[in-house]
């Protein structure tokens, strides 16, 4: 210790005393990451959006997901659904047998489909028929004490109901208003949207799937990936608007066309057209720029005796990448494609359509008598990039994701044991990680909490509104 206690000396401070000691004390990167992210311990850390309150008058996946991102990061989100019915997504797939109950005490035999999962976690679920003049006061009260709202009605509907940005801004100048929907203002403003419409109309489906002469068609992704993608894009907009508001004190209106958002995934398509007049085409499981860099079909399944046909018949696809010349030579040496190695020496030659057809056909011929696992192992052992095309079960059983906590079980307070991958797969944050409190709540489950505890309406009024189906 120095004589004068006010003096700070490096050797008195905790921690390493020299550069060598510092190096010695550093934990391996793997350990460091484990300690930083500490999967399973998210709830002991702060939430970055704590203090933000958001209203969600949204339906299906796209706009709800824009808000669920906030809820997972700690915002208080109030999801407002139509009385008795709830979000129509609750009544969508998949299939009756996977329904989760309860939906609502007025519909004891109807549940919520699993399609609703992941789109509305951590939210308070209330009901309100907000277009009724009688409910305007409650709606406006919520607006006054919230930071923003996301809605998904046809453009101008909320304006007609006196609750669009220009009305709400007068009550709460800091209010951030999000409209998310199909086309946005413009000649097609009345066009609604679904994920499939976004994928189709934005041009995305036209470049997905194999070429027609190989028996392919424009394909949509099986899941609603443009719903999830556009929703996340909105969340970026909201976070930027919150940041802007910290600087200016003013709210923003965000107008977000789902169809427009999907074109963002098309990368260079528009510039390519602009410069050369070339319209991009489909190229399926292969790559237009790189070869070999695609998914091939192997002859045998990795699980030939499995009961489940998804394992027994489908575990036959492998992603193979060897587009750099060195890797390409290695690939040709392993697979015996000596003639192709001489024929297509550079990636530019290999990336030509005719070359790709020949190369992938030869690769699949080589893989004809091999299982997916054998193909991947052979190529990986040679230092090439190859991975099996996995299904959900394999993802679930993968030690890597389990260790990182991106797939995990949780005990939902109402619905019990739920396998979860959505929240925790959306990136890790060391200080303020996402977390999942509950997957969703029944229709109107938080009516008392919000109307009574937050807004101060007596329970008698709430019951009266409920009887009239205003709630």
């Amino acid at each position, binding site marked *: 210790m120095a004589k004068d206690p006010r003096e700070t000396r490096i050797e008195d401070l905790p921690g390493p005393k020299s550069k060598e000691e510092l190096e010695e004390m550093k934990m391996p990167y793997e350990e460091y990451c484990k300690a930083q992210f500490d999967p399973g311990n998210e709830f002991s850390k702060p939430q970055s959006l704590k203090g933000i309150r958001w209203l969600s008058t949204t339906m299906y996946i796209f706009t709800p997901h824009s808000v669920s991102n906030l809820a997972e990061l700690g915002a208080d989100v109030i999801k407002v659904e139509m009385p008795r019915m709830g979000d129509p997504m609750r009544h969508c797939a998949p299939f009756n047998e996977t329904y989760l109950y309860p939906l609502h005490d007025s519909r004891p035999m109807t*549940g919520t489909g699993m399609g609703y999962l992941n789109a509305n976690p951590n939210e308070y679920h209330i009901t309100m028929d907000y277009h009724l003049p009688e409910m305007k006061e409650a709606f406006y009260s919520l607006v006054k004490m919230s930071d923003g709202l996301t809605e998904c009605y046809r453009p101008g509907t909320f304006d007609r109901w006196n609750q669009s940005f220009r009305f709400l801004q007068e009550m709460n100048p800091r209010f951030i208003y999000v409209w998310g929907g199909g086309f946005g203002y413009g000649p097609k403003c009345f066009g609604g949207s679904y994920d499939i419409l976004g994928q189709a109309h934005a041009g995305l489906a036209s470049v997905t799937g194999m070429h027609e002469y190989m028996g392919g068609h424009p394909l949509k992704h099986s899941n609603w990936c443009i719903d999830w993608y556009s929703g996340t894009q909105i969340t970026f907009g909201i976070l930027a608007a919150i940041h802007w508001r910290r600087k200016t004190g003013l709210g923003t209106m965000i107008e977000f066309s789902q169809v427009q958002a999907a074109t963002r995934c098309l990368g260079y398509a528009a510039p390519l057209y602009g410069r050369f007049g070339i319209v991009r085409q489909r190229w399926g499981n292969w790559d237009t720029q790189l070869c070999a860099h695609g998914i091939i079909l192997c002859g045998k399944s990795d699980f030939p005796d499995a009961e489940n046909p998804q394992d027994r018949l489908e575990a036959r696809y492998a992603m193979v990448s060897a587009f750099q010349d060195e890797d390409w030579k290695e690939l040709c040496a392993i697979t015996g494609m000596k003639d192709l190695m001489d024929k297509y020496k550079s990636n530019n030659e290999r990336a030509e359509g005719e070359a790709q057809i020949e190369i992938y056909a030869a690769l699949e011929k080589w893989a004809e008598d091999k299982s997916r696992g054998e193909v991947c192992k052979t190529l990986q052992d040679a230092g090439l990039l190859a991975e099996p095309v996995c299904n959900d079960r394999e993802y679930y059983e993968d030690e890597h994701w389990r260790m990182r906590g991106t797939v995990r079980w949780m*005990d939902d307070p109402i619905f*019990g044991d739920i396998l979860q991958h959505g929240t925790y797969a959306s990136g890790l944050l060391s200080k303020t990680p996402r977390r999942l409190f509950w997957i969703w709540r029944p229709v109107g489950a938080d009516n008392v909490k919000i109307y009574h505890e937050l807004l101060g309406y007596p329970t008698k009024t709430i019951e009266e509104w409920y009887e009239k189906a205003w709630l």
Partner: protein
Amino acid sequence: MCDIIWCKKDFEGKPCNTINYLDPYCFWNWEGTINCAECGAVYYIHMIQGKMYRGPEDRPGEKPDTSPLYADKPLEGYRFYGAGIPDRTRPFECLPRHIYLGVPDMVKFSIRNRPVRGWRPQAPDGGIAGSYQFNWDLKRLSPDVYEEYQQKIKNGEVTEW
């Protein structure tokens, strides 16, 4: 969208009138013979990129290469042949899961044998204006499942993953 073979052969004293659907994933680029799901008549077709390039031509006595996936008889109401009827239609290879019940399956336990909740019939009343409590108390609301769960714990059937 798909092409069809409308079979109008005489069968059991009246026109067969069966529509055999040529599902595009199988028949998009295809050449060979196919049977009618009702009367078994064999037709030759050659399709190129979803267009009927040749056929359907009769090939009596030949063995069909394949069958339609699905066929129906629209003039006779809702009579149809679903997928996978031997000698009539092809099996449906779109891989439904191996256990297909066709009826609501109110599972009470997850695949790792821990109780799921929120099944039918639900509690008759959720409280004021449908407000549910934050917790579904298994022991109180579903004592039978709770008992079954205790048994599973005792048997060591409850796992982490």
